[in-house]
């Protein structure tokens, strides 16, 4: 299934029965699919007159207690920001899909990740956050879309599924059986707060879906309540994926489809002996700070790869707290970084140590080759030994063989010696660096004490 269609079906399977949206590339398959499917499941698809109207229809439907979704792409999401802010203020659960395209302005229609700031910093006016889920595959898009509805209901908040043109357009095998007829999470409460047009009771008094708190004292209380909710989300809902970070000296941080491209680059670098690992944030907010900090044990450098001019890189730097250099590689405007570009960047970052490692690798390879050649010759010799043991040429041949293996052994010995010398050099360099570092740390500590 195409990513867009998979997301739409996943939403329906998660009980979403209301969809309001407006056409914009590259997410059109979502409203198209919804327009076909919603009537089949007794739901409602409505093409609104604008994105502004769509998000407000979402506000109405969500405020009335329904599972509701809208989708758009960057310029349309900008139009929705006002509504999103109101939805946050009034604590209305809903799911918003953004299939990001190149910007600013009308921009392009090609994939981008340049709405990172907008999504993770709130986007609209006011003091708020919003969970942002960034799928890295079509299968994950299905799971995250469904999770988004639970998250939204659990915390009474809008939740954004942040994809890009690639995720939306790509076709991958999807296991929809697992996603089929997904029930709301067991912990979810009945929406007694919703404006369902109900007779007020003690448990469910008259509902007011509202974001206006004219008294600043009351608004501050409301904002603090929201903040407490965001703290709870940060504590409980942060998600990420780690790959090969155990011994990683360079840690890539990338999300969404960029993480897939970075993954290919990571594998290529590993083949070259460069110890690269990756942290892929699945929730962009809350951001996996702890997971990134945990890699500081081995990580010497970080590389943030994005389809933007560098937005998430700020969060990586905040997570690393200045303890390691954080570099950036990105393409923007709808351009997609290639595996080759990222490998080149990583090789550059690996720099000096990787060259040494490559020498060691070459030496090891030469040794392996020598051993294999010797083995092969032995094997060939062994199979013929019975037939030829009495052959007059036998003696001559064994002499030749002795000579050949002798040469190989000499070569191998040379290689080992070179390797050992190099290792010695590295060792002393490392020792030097280490003592520098210890000296430097001491100074830092002194400064700190001085400040206090």
């Amino acid at each position, binding site marked *: 299934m195409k990513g867009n269609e998979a997301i739409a079906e996943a939403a329906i399977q998660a009980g979403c029965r*209301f969809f*309001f949206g407006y056409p914009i590339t590259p997410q059109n398959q979502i409203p198209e699919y919804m327009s076909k499917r919603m009537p089949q499941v007794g739901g*409602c698809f*409505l093409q*609104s*007159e*604008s994105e*502004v*109207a*769509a998000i*407000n*229809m*979402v*506000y*109405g*439907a*969500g*405020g*009335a*207690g*329904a599972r*509701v979704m809208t989708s758009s792409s960057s310029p349309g999401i900008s139009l929705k920001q*006002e*509504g999103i802010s*109101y939805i946050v203020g*009034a604590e209305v659960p809903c799911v918003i899909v953004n299939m990001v395209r190149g910007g600013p302005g009308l921009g392009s229609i090609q994939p981008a990740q340049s709405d990172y700031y907008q999504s993770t910093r709130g986007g609209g006016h006011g003091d708020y956050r919003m969970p942002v889920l960034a799928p890295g595959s079509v299968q994950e898009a299905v799971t995250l879309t469904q999770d988004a509805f639970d998250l939204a209901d659990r915390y009474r908040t809008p939740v954004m599924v942040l994809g890009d043109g690639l995720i939306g357009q790509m076709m991958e095998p999807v296991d929809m059986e697992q996603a089929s007829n997904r029930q709301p999470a067991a912990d979810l409460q009945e929406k007694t707060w919703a*404006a*369902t*047009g*109900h*007779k*007020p009771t003690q448990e469910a008094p*008259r*509902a*007011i*879906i*509202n*974001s*206006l708190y004219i008294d600043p004292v009351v608004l501050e209380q409301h904002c603090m309540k929201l903040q407490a909710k965001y703290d709870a989300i940060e504590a409980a809902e942060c998600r990420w994926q780690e790959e090969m970070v155990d011994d990683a000296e360079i840690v890539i941080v990338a999300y969404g489809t960029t993480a897939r491209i970075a993954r290919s680059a990571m594998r290529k670098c590993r083949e070259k002996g460069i110890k690269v690992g990756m942290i892929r944030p699945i929730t962009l907010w809350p951001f996996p700070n702890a997971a990134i900090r945990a890699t500081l044990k081995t990580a010497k450098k970080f590389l943030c790869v994005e389809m933007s001019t560098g937005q998430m890189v700020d969060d990586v730097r905040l997570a690393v707290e200045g303890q390691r250099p954080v570099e950036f590689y990105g393409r923007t405007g709808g351009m997609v970084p290639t595996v080759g570009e990222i490998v080149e960047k990583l090789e550059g970052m690996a720099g000096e140590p990787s060259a040494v490692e490559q020498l060691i690798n070459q030496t090891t390879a030469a040794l392996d080759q020598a051993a294999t050649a010797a083995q092969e010759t032995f094997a060939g010799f062994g199979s013929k030994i019975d037939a030829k043991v009495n052959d007059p040429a036998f003696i001559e041949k064994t002499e030749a063989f002795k000579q050949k293996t002798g040469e190989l052994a000499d070569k191998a010995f040379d290689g080992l010696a070179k390797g050992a010398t190099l290792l010695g050099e590295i060792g002393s360099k490392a020792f030097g660096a280490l003592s520098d570092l210890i000296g430097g740390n001491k100074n830092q500590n002194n400064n700190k004490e001085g400040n206090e």
Partner: protein
Amino acid sequence: MAVVFKKTNMLTDKPFHYCPGCTHGIIHRLVAEVLEELGIGETAIGVAPVGCAVFAYDYFNCDMMEAAHGRAPAVATGAKRVHPDKAVFTYQGDGDLASIGAAEIVHAATRGEKITVIFVNNAIYGMTGGQMAPTTLPGQVTTTSPYGRDTNHCGFPVHVSEMLSTLNGPAYIERVSVHDVPNIKKAKAAIKKAFTLQMEGKGFTMVEVISSCPTNWGKTPKEALEWVKSDMLPAYPLGVYKDITAGGDE
């Protein structure tokens, strides 16, 4: 002691914040009474605008939503689609409905959205301090048309009822006024008809209520009501602009 007047249960006990002489209070009461009389009030869902009626959710004693500026018809659309059997209404002023929310109202109307819109037209932005509204009359002085509305410069007032009645979606559109008792009675009948047709699923219904704004018009309440009669009504003629049930009744 005989009860000669009883406030409708569909209004809360919260005192109105409206200025003296403002007709919002009357219009609120008419809507609330109609909701009660039709027996649809307790389960109604109202949508409040941005403008003077921004606190309408504090006054109407039913489920209420506060919409972003101009978006009430879209919000109501969402609510109505989820609860097609409930009475859903918006209560909007002229800036909210005819300016920033022009798109939302036109499209809710043309979709035949089964909601009732109470459109309060007082030809001015009240809450923000008397600026020119889309319905401000030619020559009318406001804080942003201090020399009077110059149609050459900023165009003509929007006639919402006339405009929307050209669409196929609306079932019922009437313009009423509340400047005197006979008109108040007519206004209530119109609101009742609108909600009745909504509940019958006939289509989009709207009642435009010509209102007064003594504070921002710079008039006494009495002068303001006279100005409604002398200036507003000629520009905004009262009457039924659309009624798909017409014929048999009249």
